């Protein structure tokens, strides 16, 4: 085993935070859906994938700067999200969680395979911002750095939205208690759709930012769904700042493990971590509702 230098450690920490910011952004969307609708959106990663492809096609055919087309990607998926069928009414009253799992599962399968049909599984990427900045011994990938900045910015906006605007507060109220929200005159059905739209937009943003960094292919979303869920479990379901911290934590853990463990294990680290956390503290490391 090679000795770990301070520089290597610093590099790894930086990489971890950069990656973690993206996890946090995407997981926030999932946290919203789960908190407000009590739905586990297995299609979440698929939404990210769609965001990536949108960015890719706009870049390839229209020459749009991926960072400028990001709002468009968000808008597109927001519109898609508010029309989604994942609302409680038609679902089995007694087992909404089971039904929503299966439902989002089905949607995910369909979308992923439609993507396969439409775009094949050829790997694509947006060749936009390549190379890195060097600060001493530590290299910052340009794309990741910009991604970090955007992720941070969007997350802050999201928090402002949730905390300061009337709609945001309505969303939080509905997450706390559906019945009470209804009594207060909040149109819960509409809030659900809005939430799904916002969450989809956040996933799309993640997809947009990621399109410059990783290879795009139809199945890319699966791992994001999983990691988003892991982040929520780490941070505590329904705990939005927790999602932020959980994302950063995941990023750090992954990078650190790649330094100290074999590649195979570090790939599986997310899954192992999930199982471990679920067993020890299902309410999340930072606490929160289950």
């Amino acid at each position, binding site marked *: 085993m090679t000795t770990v230098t301070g520089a290597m450690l610093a590099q790894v920490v930086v990489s971890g935070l950069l990656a973690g910011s993206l996890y946090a952004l995407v997981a926030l969307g999932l946290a919203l859906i789960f908190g407000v609708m009590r739905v586990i959106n297995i299609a979440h990663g698929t939404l990210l994938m769609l965001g990536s492809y949108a960015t890719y096609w706009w870049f390839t055919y229209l020459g749009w700067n991926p960072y400028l087309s990001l709002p468009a990607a968000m808008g597109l998926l927001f519109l898609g999200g508010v029309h989604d069928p994942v609302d409680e009414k038609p679902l089995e009253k007694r087992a909404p969680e*089971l039904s929503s*799992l299966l439902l989002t*599962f*089905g949607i*995910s*399968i369909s979308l992923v395979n*439609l993507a396969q049909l439409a775009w094949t599984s050829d790997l694509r990427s947006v060749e936009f911002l390549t190379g890195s900045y060097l600060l001493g011994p530590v290299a910052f990938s340009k794309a990741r750095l910009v991604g970090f900045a955007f992720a941070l910015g969007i997350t802050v906006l999201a928090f402002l939205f949730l905390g300061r605007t009337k709609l945001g507060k309505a969303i939080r109220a509905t997450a706390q208690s559906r019945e009470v929200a209804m009594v207060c005159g909040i149109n819960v059905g509409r809030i659900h759709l809005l939430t799904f739209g916002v969450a989809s937009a956040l996933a799309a943003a993640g997809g947009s930012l990621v399109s410059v960094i990783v290879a795009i292919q139809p199945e890319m979303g699966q791992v994001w769904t999983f990691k988003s869920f892991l982040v929520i*479990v780490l941070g505590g379901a329904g705990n939005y700042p927790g999602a932020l911290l959980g994302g950063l934590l995941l990023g750090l853990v992954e990078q650190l493990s790649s330094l100290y463990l074999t590649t195979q294990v570090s790939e*599986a680290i997310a899954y192992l971590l999930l199982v471990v956390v679920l067993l020890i503290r299902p309410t999340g490391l930072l606490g929160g509702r*289950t």
Partner: protein
Amino acid sequence: MKRLGPALLALGLLAWLALWPLWASGYRVRFMLELFMWVALAQSWNLISGLTGYVSFGHVAFYGTGAYTAGILILRADWPWPLAVLAGGVTAPILALLIGYPCLRLKGPYFAIAMLGLNEVMRVVVSYFDGLTGGGLGLSLPTLHASVPVYYAMGATALGATILAFAIITSRFGLRLMSIREDEVAAEAMGIDTSRYKLYAFLLSAVAPGIAGGLFARDQGYIEPISVFPLLTTITMIVMCLFGGKGTIFGPVLGAVLLSVFQELVWARFLYVHQVLFGVIIVAVVLFMPKGILGVLQERYRLPRTI
């Protein structure tokens, strides 16, 4: 006297299936063999997810475990394949015990996601122990023209799984499992040790997939991680069970038959379309007929709960 009719029909069907290899071509025998496999898988998924409501999204892990168990025993330990396959039916429940014990304590969505991740974990595990499992390159078994015996073995597995489902669903054990699905809190308050029952159901639901996986390995002669741990297998068994009617005895059989035929018509040329349609079927079933075909019939025509 009333029972005689359906009983004769059943016997006739079994006889027809038993004689099938004698007049059907190799391809058709294969088709039925796969059909049997799906029946066994869908029935098993039903045992845990249909009865207790704990949705297992990683059930294919048991299938893969059975495949690798049998494969390794045949290749490295020279076991005769029937024994190796049965061993798969033992290691799969052991895996179920290891995972089930901690994971079944989790609430619905958490359990589902944990099972979803299980798949990936298994693939990584298999890749890691590549000395034993051949890693990414897979395992090649000595060739054996055993389609017909495997056909019968798979048929027996499907039959066994269905009989097991029948026994459970008509018993008090089955009622208790279903009470967990209906209202776990109330079930606990009524004196039912829900943790233990869930675990039993989970273990039982792993046996048939373990055996089926082993048989698949023997039949194909070659296995690699992606062929025995594919998400598509889990999706397919879920769709079949939902479509036919989860929680019923013959629902999974019905679903398996209908969708196998559908698969035969669509898959061969249109893999991705096929999967898209599966996704659409899941969405449609969940939204419009969550109880599946048999469930709808049960309600409409007031059929007994145990069909």
